[in-house]
């Protein structure tokens, strides 16, 4: 199998729709030889990206997963929403000591995505935000 394996999904604004994208991670990653532990980390990152897109976006969320065979194999996931957009550089890095004292304890999603994946690119403007994440087999 040398051709990329591609899955495109459209997630509705429904509870746990993010799990559909997480399941697709296995479908693309297992045939490429990714370990289940690595894919579990990718799933967590994909779940977080989808949750952000569903919460802050508008309407459906589009997810594209591409598995590229090779050494290393690459698993690329893009999550696109049509919300108002945001400035990725202005999202504060969460710190546990501060979160424990704060009323709002959320805000971990982007930090987790960045730590769990090898590459993360965010393009965001009003009307379209795309989070593209890559994990290599044996990476991170």
């Amino acid at each position, binding site marked *: 199998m040398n051709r990329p394996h591609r899955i495109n999904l459209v997630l509705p604004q429904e509870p746990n729709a993010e799990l559909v994208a997480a399941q697709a991670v296995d479908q693309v990653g297992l045939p490429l030889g990714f370990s289940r*532990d690595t894919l*579990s980390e990718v799933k967590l990152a994909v779940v977080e990206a989808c949750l952000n897109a569903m919460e802050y976006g508008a309407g459906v969320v589009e997810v594209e997963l591409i598995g590229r065979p090779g050494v290393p194999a690459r698993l690329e996931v893009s999550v696109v929403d049509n919300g108002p957009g945001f400035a990725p550089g202005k999202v504060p890095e969460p*710190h*546990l000591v501060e979160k*424990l004292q704060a009323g709002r*304890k*959320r805000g971990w999603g982007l930090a987790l995505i960045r*730590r*769990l994946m090898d590459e993360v690119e965010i393009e965001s403007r009003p009307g379209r935000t795309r989070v593209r994440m890559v994990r290599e087999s044996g990476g991170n």
Partner: protein
Amino acid sequence: MDTFELKTAQADGRLAVLEVAGYINNEAGEAIAAEARRLIEGGHRILLLDLSATRIINSIGISLLLEVLEHLLEVEGNLAFCGLSPSIAKTFQIMGLAQYARILPDRAAALEALSAKP
């Protein structure tokens, strides 16, 4: 695999053990937090969350676990986890949770460690 279930498996003296199965999202996190509140108000000061049957937790679920941790710290209690999958262990490590909560390999090791006199 993803169906959430919560069970208080043991509640003796200061220690209570919560078995959590399935996907920990906002609703599951709320259920865990509510049960934890009940146990803390009932006098338990050490809560062990056994996540052996949990494979995925999202950041909203995590934030609700932080509320449990905050509540326990307020009453000078302790939060502990066991049975973490490698990805959940890595998530907790990224967050720095081990500074405030004990992470133990399995239920037997956790019960032994948490029952030991300080």
